[in-house]
C-alpha cells in the first residue's frame, strides 16, 4: 500500500507529523510507560521515597479480595450489558429492516440516544429509580417491591447494566441494520418460495450471514462496557453499595485518586492495558478475516 507518486522534501514531512507525534509521546507513550514503571515500585503518597518491588504490586492486587471482586463484577457487568444491548438491538434492527412504512422515522428515533453521554444516561436512569423521588421506584413500591439501589447490591448492578445497555442499543442498531440491508435479498426470497417461515429464514440465513457484524459488535460492546461506562458508575452508584458495582476502571480511579495507592493503581492500569491490547488484536484479526473471506 504505497503511493506511486510522492513528493520529495527533506523537512516538510517531519513538520507535518510533528504535532501528532508530540501529543502521542507526551500524553500516551510517556504516561503508559510511567504506569508500567510505577507498577514495579512502591511509593509513598507524597512521592518522597520509592523502592523497587518487582512484581509485588501485582502479587498483592491478585490476592486482594476487593480486586478479585472487582474482576468478577466487571465480567458480570460487561457480559450483561453486551447480551442485553445486542439482543434488543438485533430484534429492533430486524424489525426495522422489515418495516416498509416509517422506516426512516424509526431509524432516526432509535439512533439518537447514542448522542447521550454515559454520565447523562446515568442521571436519567438515576432519576427514574431514585428511591425517594423516582417514579419507577414509586410504582415498584405500590406493587410491593422495595427499591433502594443505594443499599441493595443486586439492584444497583441491575440499574447500571440497564443504563449502560440503554445507550449502547442505538450503536448496535445502526450496525445491525447496515448488516441486514447488505444481505442479498434473493437468498431470502428463494427460501420463502420453498416455504420457510420468517423465523426459520432468520435463523438459517440472516443470522449466519450477519456473524461478522455480530462478532465485531461483541468486541466493541465489551470495550464499551469495560472503559466507557465510568460515567454511568460514577453518577449512579460510586462503585457501591459495598463494592457491588466496582468495575475495574472505577477501581483504578478510586485507588489512584482517592486512596492514593500509586503502585497498586499503576499495576491495575497495566492489567487494563493488557486487556485493551488483546481486544484490539482480536478485533484486527477479525478485520483481516473479513477482508479475505
Amino acid at each position, binding site marked *: 500500500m504505497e503511493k506511486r*507518486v510522492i*513528493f*520529495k*522534501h527533506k523537512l*516538510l*514531512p517531519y513538520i*507535518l*507529523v510533528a*504535532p*501528532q*507525534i508530540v501529543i502521542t509521546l507526551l*500524553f*500516551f507513550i510517556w504516561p*503508559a510507560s*510511567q504506569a508500567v514503571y*510505577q507498577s514495579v515500585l512502591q511509593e509513598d503518597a507524597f512521592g518522597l521515597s520509592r523502592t523497587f518491588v518487582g512484581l509485588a504490586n501485582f502479587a498483592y492486587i491478585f490476592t486482594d479480595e476487593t480486586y478479585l471482586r472487582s474482576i468478577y463484577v466487571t465480567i458480570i457487568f460487561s457480559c450483561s450489558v453486551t447480551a442485553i444491548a445486542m439482543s434488543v438491538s438485533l*430484534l*429492533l434492527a430486524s*424489525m426495522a429492516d*422489515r*418495516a416498509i*412504512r*416509517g422506516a426512516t422515522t*424509526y431509524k432516526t*428515533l432509535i439512533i*439518537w440516544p*447514542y*448522542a*447521550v*453521554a*454515559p*454520565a*447523562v444516561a446515568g*442521571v436519567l*436512569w*438515576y*432519576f427514574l429509580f431514585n428511591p*425517594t423521588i423516582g*417514579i419507577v421506584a414509586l410504582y415498584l413500591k405500590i406493587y410491593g417491591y422495595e427499591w433502594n439501589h443505594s443499599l441493595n447490591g443486586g439492584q444497583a448492578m441491575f440499574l447500571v447494566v440497564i443504563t449502560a445497555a*440503554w445507550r449502547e*442499543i*442505538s450503536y448496535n442498531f*445502526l450496525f445491525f441494520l447496515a448488516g441486514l440491508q447488505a444481505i442479498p435479498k434473493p437468498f431470502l426470497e428463494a427460501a*420463502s*418460495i420453498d416455504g420457510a417461515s*420468517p423465523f426459520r429464514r432468520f435463523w438459517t440465513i440472516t443470522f449466519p450471514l450477519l456473524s461478522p457484524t455480530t462478532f*465485531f459488535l461483541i468486541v*466493541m460492546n465489551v470495550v464499551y462496557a469495560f*472503559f466507557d461506562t*465510568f*460515567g454511568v458508575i*460514577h*453518577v449512579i452508584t460510586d462503585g457501591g453499595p459495598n463494592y457491588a458495582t466496582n468495575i475495574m*476502571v472505577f477501581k483504578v480511579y478510586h485507588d489512584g*485518586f482517592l486512596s492514593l495507592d500509586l503502585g497498586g493503581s499503576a499495576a491495575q*492500569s497495566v492489567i*487494563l492495558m493488557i486487556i*485493551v491490547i488483546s481486544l*484490539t488484536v482480536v478485533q484486527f484479526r477479525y*478485520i483481516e478475516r473479513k477482508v479475505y473471506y
Partner: protein
Amino acid sequence: MVEHRPWLTFLTHAILIFGMLLLVIPIYVTFVASSHSLDEITAHFSLLPGTQLVENYTSALSVGPRDVGATVGTMMLNSLIMALGITLGKIFISLLAAYAIVYFKFRFRMFFFWLIFITLMLPVEVRILPTYKVAADLKILDSYPGLILPLIASATATFLFRQFFMTVPDELCEAVKIDGGGPIRFFFDILLPMSRTSIAALFVILFIYGWNQYLWPLLITTDESYYTLLIGIKRMLDVGEGQAEWQIIMASTILAMIPPILIVIFMQKQFVKGMTETEK
C-alpha cells in the same frame, strides 16, 4: 418480501414502537421534570409538562445551581470549547500526519505510523494517573489546553484520512507536479477540498465524543470556572444529606443532551457515515 402476513407486519410495528418508547421515556420524564418546581418533583409530579419550564431554564443558565459556583451557561460554554477544541484539533493533526505518511517518503515513516497506531490501545481510562501527572507538570490543570490537548491524539482519524488519501488518483498529484506546484499547493488546492465529506463525517463523531468526555475533565478541573456541564451536573447531585435541586439538575441534563442530539438528527447522513467508517 414476497408474502403478505398482516400479523407479522403488526408485530413488527408494535415491537419498533415499544423499543422507541423504551429509548425515549427516560428522556421524556427528565424533560417533564425540568418543567416542574422542586416541590412538585419531590411530591411525585404528573407526567405532563408543568408550568416552571422557562423559570427553571433561565435560572439554571443565568443564576446557576447552588453550591457549584458557576452558571450552567458558563459550563455549557466550557463544554462547547472543549468539544470544538478536541474536534478541530484532532482533525487538524490527523490530516497533517496522514498527508505526511501517504505522500512522502522519509526516514522513520513506518515507525511514526506504528507510534500513532499504538494510541488506539491506550484509552485515557487505563493511564489516568500518569497522564494527570504529565498535565500537572505542564501546569495545564484547570485550563482549556488541559481539557483539550491530552484528548486530541487519535489513531482513528489518522487512519480514516490515510484510507481516503490512498483512494485519491495519482494523476491528480502528477498534474500538480507538472504544473510546477509543490506539496503545499496540492494539499490546499486538491486534497483538502476532496476530503470535505470525510471531514464532515469525522466532525460529527468527534464533536459527540468531545462533548461527552467525562473522566478527564473530572480529574483535572477543580476550579469551577472550568467545569464542563457534565461535571457540573455530577456536582449538583453530590449534595450529601441536603436536598438536590432536581428542577435545575433536570434542566441542565436536557441542556447537556441538546447539542449532540441536534447534531445527530440534522447531520444524520454524516453521522452514519462517520460511525461506519471510523469503526472499521
